[in-house]
């Protein structure tokens, strides 16, 4: 998936968000760290173009809510959550790069409700690669990819990696097994 397909995927998500949420100022886009955050910011810019008002943007660090902390060595870095507005009663769109097992989204939902009681929570992902382990689905999908479980989907973004690209990587026998599935 190259830069132009990635941009088209994002544009489609943005269009659908605007269609579903005419009152965009009551909507918040909350990116899941790390790559969900620049994606949420980009979506907010695209959404704002056609509309008078911008959605609010936040960042969620789910590290402290992971269900696999005790099995990971070393500790993942805690980068911090920033939601500088009240989410009570508004619609929150969680934004992430890849939807895989659904465990990250589960952690994000748990964290989000500690901040208040949103009227509604939706999920936008750039890539849905299947293999869910929890009853979770996305409301907005940039692209659905058929993948094997052992493969890795790597999203590279200009803000962090210097280029916009999505790569499907084959498993590297030893390395891939010892690393976490994400990050």
């Amino acid at each position, binding site marked *: 998936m190259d830069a132009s397909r990635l941009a088209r995927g994002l544009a489609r998500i943005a269009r659908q968000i605007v269609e579903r949420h005419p009152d965009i100022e009551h909507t918040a886009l909350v990116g899941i760290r790390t790559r969900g955050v620049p994606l949420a910011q980009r979506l907010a810019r695209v959404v704002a173009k056609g509309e008078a008002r911008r959605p609010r943007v936040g960042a969620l*660090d789910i590290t*402290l*809510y992971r269900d696999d*902390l*005790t*099995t*990971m*060595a*070393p*500790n*993942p*870095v*805690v*980068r*911090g*959550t*920033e939601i500088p507005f009240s989410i009570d009663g508004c619609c929150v769109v969680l934004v992430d790069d890849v939807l895989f097992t659904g465990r990250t989204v589960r952690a994000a939902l*748990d*964290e989000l409700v*500690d*901040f*208040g009681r949103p009227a509604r929570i939706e999920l936008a992902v750039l890539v849905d690669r299947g293999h869910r382990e929890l009853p979770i689905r996305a409301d907005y999908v940039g692209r659905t990819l058929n993948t094997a479980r052992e493969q890795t989907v790597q999203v590279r973004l200009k803000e962090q990696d210097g280029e916009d690209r999505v790569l499907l990587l084959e498993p590297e026998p030893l390395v891939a097994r010892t690393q976490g599935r994400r990050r």
Partner: protein
Amino acid sequence: MSLFPHRHLLGIEPLLPAEIETILDTAQSMREILDRPIKKVPTLRGKTVINLFYEPSTRTRSSFEVAERVLSADSLSIATATSSASKGETLLDTAWNLEAMKPDMIIIRHASSGAPHFLARHCRPAIVNAGDGAHEHPTQALLDALTLRQKKGRIAGLRVAIVGDLLHSRVARSNLWLLTKLGVDVILCAPPTLVPPGIEALAPVTHRIDEACEGADAVMMLRVQRERMTGGYFPSSREYHLRFGLTEARVRRARRDVVILHPGPMNRGVEISTEVADGPYSVILDQVTNGVAIRMAVLYLLLGGHSEVGA
């Protein structure tokens, strides 16, 4: 390679600058949780922490307890005045008995320097030093550094005066290690009777508080530790205040944006005047909030991951 490859936190002295930065960065990220409507994250669910305090403490103990609760660890606190230690049980016997209850971490404050290191050698749980005698108080130095970094935007290159009872102060020792490791220009100030021998090898020492305050970015005041003083180190509290107390006139010698730190509990009218303690440059209550964040970071870094690193 782990960001924090230690099993215990026994002092600042053995830490590398990068490891100190890791604790500060983690604490800065954790700080936000304290402002949430629901101040609780599930990170350390099912972990047990014992707070073993052989010396009185308000701030440090309650700060550790709050940090443990926010991270969802189960904790219990033992104040030795009401425990078997007052019946003569040795430290090691107490520790072995507590260890048999399978805690994941023991946080210890003890009047003897080296007590936490002793436990670390003989017990399995992770050990955190919450103050050992006149040796170290690592989490205090870390919360001071976090406060400095928040207020000044940096740590390296600052000029910091540490003023007061250097002889009995574990806070001074931990801070001296931490600040010099991070490139701070430290000046120490105390009456000649309260300067430990050899400390001038680590930082310059003066006996004039005016000189210490001159151009300082921050002044760290130390408590006059009456309970540890066995002899006459100075004639009277009034005399101490006149010569070494931090007053508004002395604060004016420092930089205009100076911040004043104190680890608490304060002796108002002895080492610090009430006007300074409550003045606009005082960051003493920020230190307390940051203390909780630092202790959360330490708990997370020592207990959070599945660590296979040796001590």
